[in-house]
């Protein structure tokens, strides 16, 4: 299939009105913008976890790996490390990336891996019928917590900031242009970029639960302290880029400007070097 078609033509099985449509659209809009900036479509690799959010894999005409539940962010890291010329985007759910895959997310941030993670935050394990997630507010009556859940939710932006991410934003699937712009910025960003997207899962939550609460940061924080403050003090429906800074990225520290695939050493040279090593050992 030609990569340059816009759509994959695969039947979309999200619920009518699902917040995931906004994310899908934003990505579709972001791609031409990235192309304008010289990031080619065929250079982009996507990965997705498992859940409603991850169905975006079938709808986006991008190369990639539909991975395991919670492991997509590890898979993305493998992609980047093996071929650093590729731009990698991970689409993750709140159960996926903050539950099963929590450690991978945090370590990707710790390493400042040069990739983008989009967290579809809908407060439920949507595809498995609505159980509470690590981000769900206390009291949620899902099928695994019929009396109401009683764990305090994680604050994903706070965790990811502390872990070491260098680009951190919150968006809303109802704010398409902000979301689109943020995706573009995140992909352009060198280092670990994390976008939490408030994504209403209409089968469990109505858009009206969010609509009025949504607000934007008046001023984007300019350093770590301000970011920390804004993330802690502003409420969970505050949108904007909370942090944007620079730090060495993992793959460059690992091997500089090498590329393990494109600059793979030939068989001849390998054998030659190996012979030398074996001879020297004598």
């Amino acid at each position, binding site marked *: 299939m030609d990569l340059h078609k816009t759509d994959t033509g695969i039947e979309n099985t999200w619920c009518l009105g699902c917040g995931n449509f906004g994310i899908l659209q934003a990505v579709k809009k972001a791609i031409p913008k990235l192309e304008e900036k010289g990031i080619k479509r065929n250079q982009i690799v996507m990965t997705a976890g498992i859940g409603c959010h991850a169905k975006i894999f079938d709808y986006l005409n991008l190369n*990639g790996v539909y991975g395991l539940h919670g492991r997509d962010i590890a898979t993305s890291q493998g992609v980047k490390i093996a071929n650093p010329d590729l731009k990698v985007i991970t689409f993750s759910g709140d159960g996926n990336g903050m539950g099963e895959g929590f450690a991978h997310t945090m370590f990707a941030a710790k390493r400042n891996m040069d990739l983008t993670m989009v967290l579809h935050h809908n407060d439920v394990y949507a595809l498995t019928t609505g159980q509470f997630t690590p981000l769900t507010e206390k009291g949620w009556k899902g099928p695994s917590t019929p009396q109401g859940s009683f764990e305090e939710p994680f604050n994903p932006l706070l965790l990811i900031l502390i872990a070491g991410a260098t680009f951190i934003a919150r968006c809303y699937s109802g704010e398409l242009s902000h979301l689109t712009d943020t995706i573009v910025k995140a992909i352009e960003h060198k280092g670990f970029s994390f976008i939490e997207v408030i994504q209403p899962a209409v089968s469990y939550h109505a858009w009206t639960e969010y609509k009025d609460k949504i607000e934007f940061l008046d001023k984007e924080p300019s350093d770590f302290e301000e970011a920390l403050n804004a993330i802690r003090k502003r409420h969970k429906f505050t949108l904007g880029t909370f942090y944007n800074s620079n730090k060495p990225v993992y793959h460059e520290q690992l091997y500089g400007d090498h590329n393990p695939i494109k600059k793979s050493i030939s068989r001849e040279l390998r054998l030659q070097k190996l012979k030398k090593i074996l001879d020297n050992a004598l």
Partner: protein
Amino acid sequence: MVKDVFTFLVGGKAGEGVKKAGSVAAQIFIEKGLKVFQMDDYMSLIRGGHNFSIVSTAKRDISSHYMKANISINSDKRSYDRHKNHLDKDGILVYNSDEISDSNGIGIPFTSMSKKFKMGTLMFGIGAIAVLAAYLKFSKEKLFDIIKKEFSKGIEDNIKYATEIYDLIDPKLKNKYELEDGDIKRPIMTGNQAISFGAIAGGLNTYFGYPMTPASTILHTLADYASEFGLAVVHAESEIAVINMAIGASFTGAKVMVGTSGGGFALMVEGFSLAGITEAPLLVVLSMRPGPATGVPTYTEQADLKFALSAGHGDFLRIVASPASVKDAFYLSAELLDLVCKFQTPGILLTEKHLSESAMTVDVNINNTIWAEYNLSDDIEDYKRYLFTSDGISPILFPPSDQLIKWNSYEHDEFGFTTEKAEIISKMHDKRHMKLKTLEKYMKEKIKTVKIYGDKGPLIFSYGSTTMSVLEALYYGDIKARLVQPTYLSPFPYWEIERFQDEPIIVVEMSKSEQFANLLKGQGGITIKKVISKYDGRPFDPIDLSEKIKEVL
């Protein structure tokens, strides 16, 4: 006892240079053009306890250490107690006279003599080497050369200490040993080094690992050579990260390997199944230690075979092969890297602590290693990642490409899009299954799946490093037998094994539940006469084993 073998045993605490003494001894033998087998026995601790290194050498091929030493040197009472019976008939026992005395041996005050040096008892290994040198009538000059070559720090003190020990023991050694020279100097490597170098020769680009004995030294070796060979070598946060990273790397066209032991592999199983359905080329090194669970980390066993053969949910093709020697390991890791690339499926190089961490001199011809290659797609229009083909193999393509490349964990159609359609689910199962048929055909034609040693006598089966023990036992015991060693365990090479169906066989393996024997029975239709199994963490000793084999023949 073992006329053509000389064995050096050195025992002491972890941190006293015991293992190093073993490898320096090996270097001495190598200098003389001999062949060497070195086995290190150590506990799961960093300092103290009891470790020993045992190095057997001969002019002929030697495939095991012997637990009967010609000279045994022990730094403490524990070591002495442990090894006083591990002596050859004329063997010499050297002990630390600061701790014990024994009229049957030679006492050397290793501890008190080391006191005046900064490194103190850490130098015991040097002392042991000095003793060995004296026993072999090595000149002190040669000894100094070796010390200079093998040690990086404290050379001066080392030489002083060695000289004092040498001078002290020299007169006490009545019958010194005449060690004949061999033919040529050969490189020595451990199984894990062989696996690492073999993979590099085969085209490895990326290695992901998480430390776990006895696989850790693959990570260490490759990390050491990463920049030299342009590899990305990553120590990730867990084995789950490792395998999922590896699959990401595989997606980009990197030739990729990961390594671990049973517990780490257990964590990789979901990812292993992902490699199955996405058809990701991926080589896993699984080096066994005694289980279950944490088990006995620094010892050896072969009880993960059944697990390796069936790990992962769902039906998918896997390749499992186990090298019988360090040399085999070298070639096999490249060969497997090639097979997983060609057949786009996960594979396991199954080995054990005994192979991974024992060292052998090897005669390898590096030019004979296989270079891993894919069945690449040239069809750049209308590319289908999971194209239905008659052999089940869909030509592969890597990004960047203007064709859509989708690898999918869900069941999928030819493009890689998710499907729930009954017909496609069946067809994809059929396609993946077809690869098994294709692979079997390929193996029949191109691969030495089973090795047979000897041409008459009763039949013995073994696999992995146990084969080395059996070979040495047969040699030692002068037993005429045929030894059959399947290198490939999945797909099971029934075409090679079938012909043995009519004879009852003896199986030698290291698993309580006789996993290998069950495989031979279940898949090969073989009739088992007797299983010799050992499951105490220690490899077979060829002398013991030869007796056991004689009993049952």
